[in-house]
């Protein structure tokens, strides 16, 4: 069993419990123990772009300190930390880069965190669960597949934060293949579509629903035109905007056909045959179960 530090992030404990539950089950099946630190805080949500905004780096750096503590006490095998939420991944990784590359900011961050028990060394490596899977090898993932997702046409949706900016993203920013490789290993049929990296509207969902519904409609429609049965994502905010927001999309575009959106880990759990608790489809909107039953993938 490999023991890896795991940073959940707030959404994984609230709206995206299905993402966490399916991840935990699939990691266990692959012989990976994901170890959550006893203490952690919000990742900082959204990387601070303003040059003088050092304060916003404190939250992510603090979480990296918690990872170093886990490593120092021998609870994990390396200084890697696995993230699931694309926002957490992006925020933690970018702050880590700032800390290691910008000595002025590093000094300021340390000065603000003065008189605290631990200081950050800069040595943590932030990775996404998809990268951890790739590192294990797609053949190892394929070896766990009990029920190949035969006949299921899946469109991988990356959004922004998994791929951009260059040097931070988990794959090539223009033509990524990591989710495609995973879906192939699970036996699904990959559907590529033009808007797989288009922004879902992000936090506009709070105060400009119609903008998000408009963007979601474009993305979902494209996936449907390309022949997809469903979309997969690695971001709770994308899942919300593309999935839960479909009620709003339907109001704005009455001819719109709803299409399920699930986390990539949920399809892994399904293909691995890990059961209902692991797939945790009940929280997804629109519900993916009727489609999966129709395809003979669920009883």
């Amino acid at each position: 069993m490999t023991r890896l530090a795991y940073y959940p992030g707030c959404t994984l404990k609230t709206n995206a419990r299905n993402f966490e539950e399916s991840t935990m089950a699939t990691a266990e099946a692959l012989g990976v123990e994901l170890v959550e630190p006893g203490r952690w805080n919000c990742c900082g949500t959204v990387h601070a772009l303003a040059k003088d905004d050092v304060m916003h780096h404190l939250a992510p750096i603090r979480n990296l300190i918690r990872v170093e503590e886990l490593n120092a006490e021998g609870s994990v095998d390396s200084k890697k930390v696995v993230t699931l939420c694309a926002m957490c991944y992006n925020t933690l990784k970018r702050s880590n880069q700032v800390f290691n590359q910008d000595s002025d900011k590093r000094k300021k961050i340390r000065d603000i965190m003065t008189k605290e028990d631990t200081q950050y060394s800069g040595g943590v490596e932030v990775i996404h669960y998809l990268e951890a899977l790739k590192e294990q090898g797609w053949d190892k993932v394929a070896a766990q597949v009990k029920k190949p997702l035969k006949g299921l046409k899946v469109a991988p949706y990356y959004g922004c934060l998994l791929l951009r900016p260059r040097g931070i993203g988990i794959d090539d920013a223009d033509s990524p293949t990591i989710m495609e490789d995973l879906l192939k290993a699970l036996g699904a049929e990959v559907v590529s579509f033009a808007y797989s990296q288009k922004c879902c509207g992000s936090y506009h969902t709070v105060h400009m629903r119609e903008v998000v519904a408009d963007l979601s409609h474009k993305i979902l429609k494209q996936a449907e035109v390309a022949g997809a049965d469903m979309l997969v994502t690695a971001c709770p905010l994308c899942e919300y905007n593309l999935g839960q927001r479909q009620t709003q999309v339907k109001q704005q575009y009455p001819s719109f056909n709803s299409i399920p959106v699930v986390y990539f880990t949920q399809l892994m759990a399904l293909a691995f045959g890990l059961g209902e608790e692991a797939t945790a489809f009940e929280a997804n909107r629109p519900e993916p179960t009727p489609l999966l039953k129709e395809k003979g993938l669920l009883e």
Partner: protein
Amino acid sequence: MICLENNDEMITIFVMGKKHRVPGSLTIMKAMEYTGHQFRRGAGCRGGFCGACATLYRKKGSYKLEGALACQKIVEDGMYIAQIPFSPSEKKTYNLNELKPDAPTILEYYPEVSRCLACNTCTKACPQDIMVMDYVQASLRGDIEQAAKLSFDCLSCGLCAVRCPAEIVPYNVGQLARRLYSKYVVGPTQHVLDRVKEVEEGKYDEEVKELMNMPLDKLKVKYNTRDKVEE
């Protein structure tokens, strides 16, 4: 009355900017009384439990703004002191019976929690050494149990709220978390239910009546010789 130890060294402190000479062994509260201040607000139990005497101070030559309970902190030479007798805060009213123990409840009543930057200033300000930032963060992600347990020793003195750059009032958030925790996570305990029933059935009516009618001098003796529960 203030009792001074023999040969107590006199030091200089500044109360609201005014210089005073006081014995160096006194607490901030006693030192302020020594200089002639009278506490009408900002003093309560004088034992470090009630949280009424939050005080901000700076030490001589230090850039750091620090906080303490005036009844607990001993004065130091060159200390600048400002008492915070009251910390204005927006305290929400809610019906506990209608709430759910989760993050949306916390955010509905105290939405500013989502502005927490994890700067840890609150934790550094806390005279009770509570991990304030950690319980604010726990409540943000709906971990009501951790928020309740971490904030358990809070006295609501208000120093965290005074210092928070995100204008969160952590002690109100902690109190909501503890109420949610005891109502929905722990639930009612049998010994409390039993005792409430006893009270309602009038088991203690006689005893209470006797106390109510007791002359003051006898009441004082009874109070001073009462049974104390050992900690």
